[in-house]
């Protein structure tokens, strides 16, 4: 008898776990990533001849909770049409009962990996500003992301910045988003208080005490499982934590962090939600003010700091005027001799 090698068994297991896309217009290429609910695969759309990413549940969901959550994620993504949010192309159910949705395949790298490479702080802040714009847009549509972190941000080679993984998003105001009725959260089901992370059995509507998100990026109220009182400011805290991450990544490259930027991160991450920025747009605007050399809301300056910032902003203009004055003075004294 011939025994199969471990490698052969692993290959067979992998092939067995691969979804069967027969009957769809897609041809599987490879698995790209795995998450709490399912996996994302690279596939080719045979009809349009383009590559797409397909998110598919890992197992046929007998209870329907996971399937409903994936469908809900697809509906949320489809409703949020914005350059910073990956567009959904298609959704459906595979022959084996697994629910899937197809979206644009984003070529690029995650923000955490992007920030490891040499990148200047202003460059990272410009990316961060675009993340704030995207999150602000979702908030105006009544959607809370609840899991903002560098791993969920994709940066493309042509300047694309996309906020990914809306799997644990919360709909704050259903009237602002067009969703079919079956995709709107149903009645809450009890979840043990303090349940950590996104589990495979997370109910559609998150019950009080359930903790969704990533430690280190979750707002204190989110970490407490205070689901009913979560609002946009929980995402603002996560954005602040992400900004803190970018600051730390830049500090590793021996760049000193401007106090104004640190103050912006601190304000966004204040333990008291009322002390944070009122909106993601306001946070983005404070970053824009810093990049434009203007004073930021989070950091009151003294007179010296104001002068230093003003001088830095108009550095070249000041040099030109001083040059003019020096040349003028030299000419006067030269011809008076």
């Amino acid at each position: 008898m011939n025994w199969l090698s471990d490698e052969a068994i692993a290959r067979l297991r992998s092939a067995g776990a691969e979804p069967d896309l027969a009957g769809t217009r897609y041809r599987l290429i490879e698995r790209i990533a795995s998450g709490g609910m399912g996996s994302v695969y690279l596939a080719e759309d045979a009809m349009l001849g383009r590559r797409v990413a397909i998110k598919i549940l890992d197992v046929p969901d007998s209870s329907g909770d996971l399937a409903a959550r994936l469908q809900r994620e697809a509906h949320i993504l489809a409703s949020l049409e914005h350059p910073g949010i990956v567009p959904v192309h298609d959704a459906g159910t595979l022959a084996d009962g697994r629910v899937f949705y197809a979206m644009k395949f984003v070529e690029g790298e995650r923000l955490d990996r992007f920030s490891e490479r040499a990148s200047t702080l202003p460059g990272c802040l410009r990316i961060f500003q675009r993340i704030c714009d995207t999150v602000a847009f979702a908030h105006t549509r009544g959607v809370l992301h609840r899991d903002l972190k560098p791993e969920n941000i994709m940066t493309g080679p042509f300047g694309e910045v996309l906020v990914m993984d809306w799997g644990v998003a919360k709909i704050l105001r259903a009237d602002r988003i067009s969703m079919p009725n079956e995709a709107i959260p149903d009645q809450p089901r009890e979840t043990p208080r303090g349940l950590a992370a996104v589990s495979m059995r997370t109910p559609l509507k998150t019950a009080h005490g359930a903790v969704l998100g990533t430690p280190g990026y979750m707002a204190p109220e989110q970490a407490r499982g205070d689901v009913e009182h979560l609002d946009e400011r929980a995402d603002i805290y996560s954005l602040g934590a992400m900004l803190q991450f970018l600051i730390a990544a830049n500090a590793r490259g021996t760049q000193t962090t401007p106090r104004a930027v640190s103050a912006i991160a601190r304000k966004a991450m204040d333990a008291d939600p009322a002390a944070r920025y009122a909106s993601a747009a306001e946070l983005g605007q404070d970053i824009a003010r810093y990049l434009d050399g203007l004073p930021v809301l989070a950091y009151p300056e003294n007179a010296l700091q104001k002068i230093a910032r003003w001088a830095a902003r108009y550095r070249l203009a000041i040099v030109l005027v001083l040059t003019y004055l020096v040349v003028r003075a030299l000419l006067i004294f030269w011809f008076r001799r």
Partner: protein
Amino acid sequence: MNKITYGLILGGILGIFDGLTSWFTPAVRPQLMGIVLGSTFKGLLAGVLIGIFARKVHSLGLGVLFGLAVGLLFAFFIAYMQRNYYVQIMVPGGLVGLIVGYATQKYGDSSTASPSRT
């Protein structure tokens, strides 16, 4: 503030200042008022031209070069009319044009600007 207004104001202010510095040249002190008026007019005209250029061409390098050229040209006309003081008039005049060229490209509001040609 749009680029033309910005150029006009900056050119005017620098023109006045440029004219006033002739006070340090005793030989021309009696004509100070005329020099200041002429220098201001020159600054205003140069500022408008540089502002128009900045509105049409969005390039810091070209803006600075154009400002320098306009400043030198106007200063040359004035020095030529006096047949004297070429260096004293043209060097600061060129610098004023250069500063206005830089400032209109860098700080003027381009919201009403036409598409970039550079």
